[in-house]
């Protein structure tokens, strides 16, 4: 019995030796919700969006507080922030990473290295590119004066990908994967400030490896999503007998298949999309009450999508932007030996690739009404 007690007290001592390990109180740290990285005059200028928990109380919501600091490297800037703020920064809830265009054009991999490598920062952070002069303008948007700015941006991005599917939502680990792989190009959301100084989605930034080479408007980036098979839901606007769109189709499901065909050293890419949708809004004067009319509408829609996709690919080829659609990885999947041969100068060869698009729309219902609101005689 005495021996047992002695042994037990020895083991208990071990507990005290650990010295409370890494006990950190939650309110001793400041929670960083977003980061903006700029590069000026040889210094990384980092802006931190911190949740201001000290001045928040029962009745007030938590607001953002901004801290800017400079450093030779990003981590240096992080540590220098202590000069202004007495608490250590906690990155576990950092949800977005805004990168200015300048930094993106010289490569985002160095800027995002800290977030990827550090254990505390999550790799599900969303990197986004700022369409303004600086990244900090985006994160310090005025439109979010009563809430946390970064969460607002993040929520709008995730709502975008859930509801509209016009712009891809790419997390940091996905971005790293895309940068690292051969045949896929990175595309990140592009955010700008609108007239009310609120952050707003403005399209897409396209990359070659990790350097930004251009941007794409929202209309084009919607088409881009079709090609990349990332459309989950959203709207498709069709113009019937008019210049402007007058039919709104709500998309339930879309699947895109990309089939490369290599014949005698010529590469042809076949893009096939199949979209299931419903007639959601009819602004035209056509009554869709017969199956033929439905078929006609489906054909019109298919034609327009094929046209959009084709146009986009041709534009990209013309601007020498290289293969941003990721056709290379499809070729790798189907013709691995040929890919090994051509991957060296794939981006140059991309100009001469023929693209065949075939779309099919299936309109399955038209909500509650067979045709449109009847206008009396």
């Amino acid at each position: 019995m005495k021996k047992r007690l002695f042994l037990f007290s020895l083991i208990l001592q071990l507990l005290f030796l650990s010295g409370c390990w890494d006990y950190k109180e939650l309110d001793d740290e400041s929670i960083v919700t977003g980061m903006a990285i700029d590069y000026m005059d040889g210094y990384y200028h980092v802006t931190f969006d911190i949740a201001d928990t000290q001045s928040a109380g029962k009745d007030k919501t938590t607001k953002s507080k901004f801290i800017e600091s400079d450093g030779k490297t990003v981590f240096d800037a992080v540590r220098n922030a202590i000069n202004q703020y007495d608490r250590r920064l906690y990155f576990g809830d950092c949800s977005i990473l805004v990168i200015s265009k300048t930094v993106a054009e010289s490569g985002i991999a160095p800027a995002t290295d800290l977030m990827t490598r550090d254990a505390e920062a999550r790799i599900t952070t969303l990197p986004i590119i700022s369409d303004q002069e600086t990244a900090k303008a985006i994160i310090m948007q005025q439109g979010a004066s009563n809430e946390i700015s970064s969460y607002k941006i993040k929520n709008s991005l995730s709502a975008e990908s859930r509801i509209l599917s016009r712009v891809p939502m790419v997390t940091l680990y996905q971005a790293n994967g895309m940068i690292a792989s051969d045949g896929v190009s990175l595309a990140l959301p592009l955010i700008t400030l609108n007239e009310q100084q609120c952050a707003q989605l403005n399209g897409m930034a396209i990359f070659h490896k990790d350097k930004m080479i251009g941007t794409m408007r929202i209309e084009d980036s919607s088409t881009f999503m079709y090609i990349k098979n990332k459309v989950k839901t959203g709207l498709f606007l069709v113009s019937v007998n008019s210049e402007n769109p007058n039919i709104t189709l709500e998309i339930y499901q879309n699947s895109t298949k990309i089939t490369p065909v290599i014949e005698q050293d010529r590469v042809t890419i076949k893009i096939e999309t199949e979209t299931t949708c419903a007639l959601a809004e009819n602004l035209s004067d056509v009554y869709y009450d017969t199956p033929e009319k439905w078929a006609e509408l489906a054909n019109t829609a298919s034609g327009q999508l094929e046209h959009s996709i084709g146009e986009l690919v041709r534009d990209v080829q013309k601007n020498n932007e290289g293969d941003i659609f990721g056709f290379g990885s499809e070729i790798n999947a189907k013709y691995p030996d040929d890919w090994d041969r051509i991957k060296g100068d794939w981006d140059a060869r991309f100009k001469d690739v023929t693209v065949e698009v075939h779309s099919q729309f299936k309109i399955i219902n038209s909500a509650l009404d067979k045709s449109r609101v009847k206008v009396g005689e």
Partner: protein
Amino acid sequence: MEQEKTKLSDRLDENIELMKILFHNDGTLRYRYIENRYRPLVKCCLFYIDGMIDNKLMNEDIIRPLLLYPFERKPASMIDDIANKITFSNNVEKTDDIEEIIRSVVYGDTVLFLDGSDVALIFNTKGWITRSISEPEGEKVLRGPREGFNEALLINLTMVRRRLRTQELKMEFQTFGTRSQTRACICYLGNLANPQILEELKKRLETIQIDGTLDVNYINEYIKDAPYSFFKTIGTTERPDIVAGKLLEGRIALFLDGTPEVLTLPFLFIENFQSDDDYYTNYYFSSIGRLLRIFSFSVSISVPAIYVALVAFHHELLPTDLTLSISVARSSIAAPTWLEAILMLLMFEILRETGLRAPNSIGQALSIVGALVIGQAAVEARLISAPMVIIVAFSGITGIMLMRMKGSIIILRFMFLFLASFIGIYGIIFGMMGLLIHLFNMRSFGIPFMNSSVADDFQDNKDTFVRAPWWYMIKRPKFMSQDPVRSASDGDPG
């Protein structure tokens, strides 16, 4: 040093002298000197303790016949005649053992000394007042009988016997305590109880050497397995229907005079979560209740520890909104999280304990004071944070659900909190591992303590986490009894 066994003499006045010396300074000992009306040579003296006898019984059934019997001539054995023919008592014993005489007199019997006989008679005249039968406070049920044991051994035994009307119900009497001479009874069903367990129990009971066993817990601590563990390996109950149920499962019950609690052994861990009205209410409802109790046990011991571990060590495990709200709640609180937790838990335990012992009038005010004033005011004074109040209240309330295990729950709660404060979730994991190793190593009278707490045999689990309908429970727990088949139906309700 062996004492010479005091012998009774056959002279009445010497016996009277002996009794007076033995009970010197005891003012409640009375004696009644009787001379028969017809034969004045028939002289006897009755000794009894005032307050412990039934006066009417003694007067009418013992004194009256002795006074009025028309003795004619001297019979061969006067004492035998008095015992067999004259007195109207349903329980007469002849003895010359002075120890037995003393024991009987102090228990409420009357002893009769006859002039000319060196043998005394002991009559059963017990008439002390016992508490009336009421529902036990600690084991209340929604449905079911509301009888509870009281402090008289024989009454408790009858309550059980009424439920098991078989001659297989064995009751073996024993006495414990050299000064208290408390009577105890081992009770079991002869054709169901495991004879090896019975053997072991008797062996352990023989080792008890104590001068007074005032409560059955004294015996409990002597005979239980794992005496240093804070889990019970012998169950206690105050309800006769539970005892009857356990006897039918092949367990053994131990009654002690003066205690309304009865020991049942062997006792398994899962029995902590079984309540009596599980069997008297609908099986869905009782299954939910049982699962709720098991859940409450695990939650009650680990919630404060997990909270401290998450908030102080593993911030990355918290969802963002929770991180923000806890951070807001904890800003400018004086105490670190572990200290907050310990203080609040202590406060809760103090309130609970005080509420238990305070008289009713103060107890009401105390609960209001405790809840509103201390909790609320402390939060507003920024001594503790609001989430901590919730955590502690939750942990405390789920702990109270299992009153039988309250000792172990309190200790385990503090132990896990202590471990978590040092090394976060690792502490909790190691604590859990240690606890499980300890639990699985324990045995209760040879039966593994955690038997049927894990799902290995379907039959054994019909009564553990859920309560299966009666038509399903066709077997008794394997380990304990001799006869495994409980009922004849084979899982068919029809």
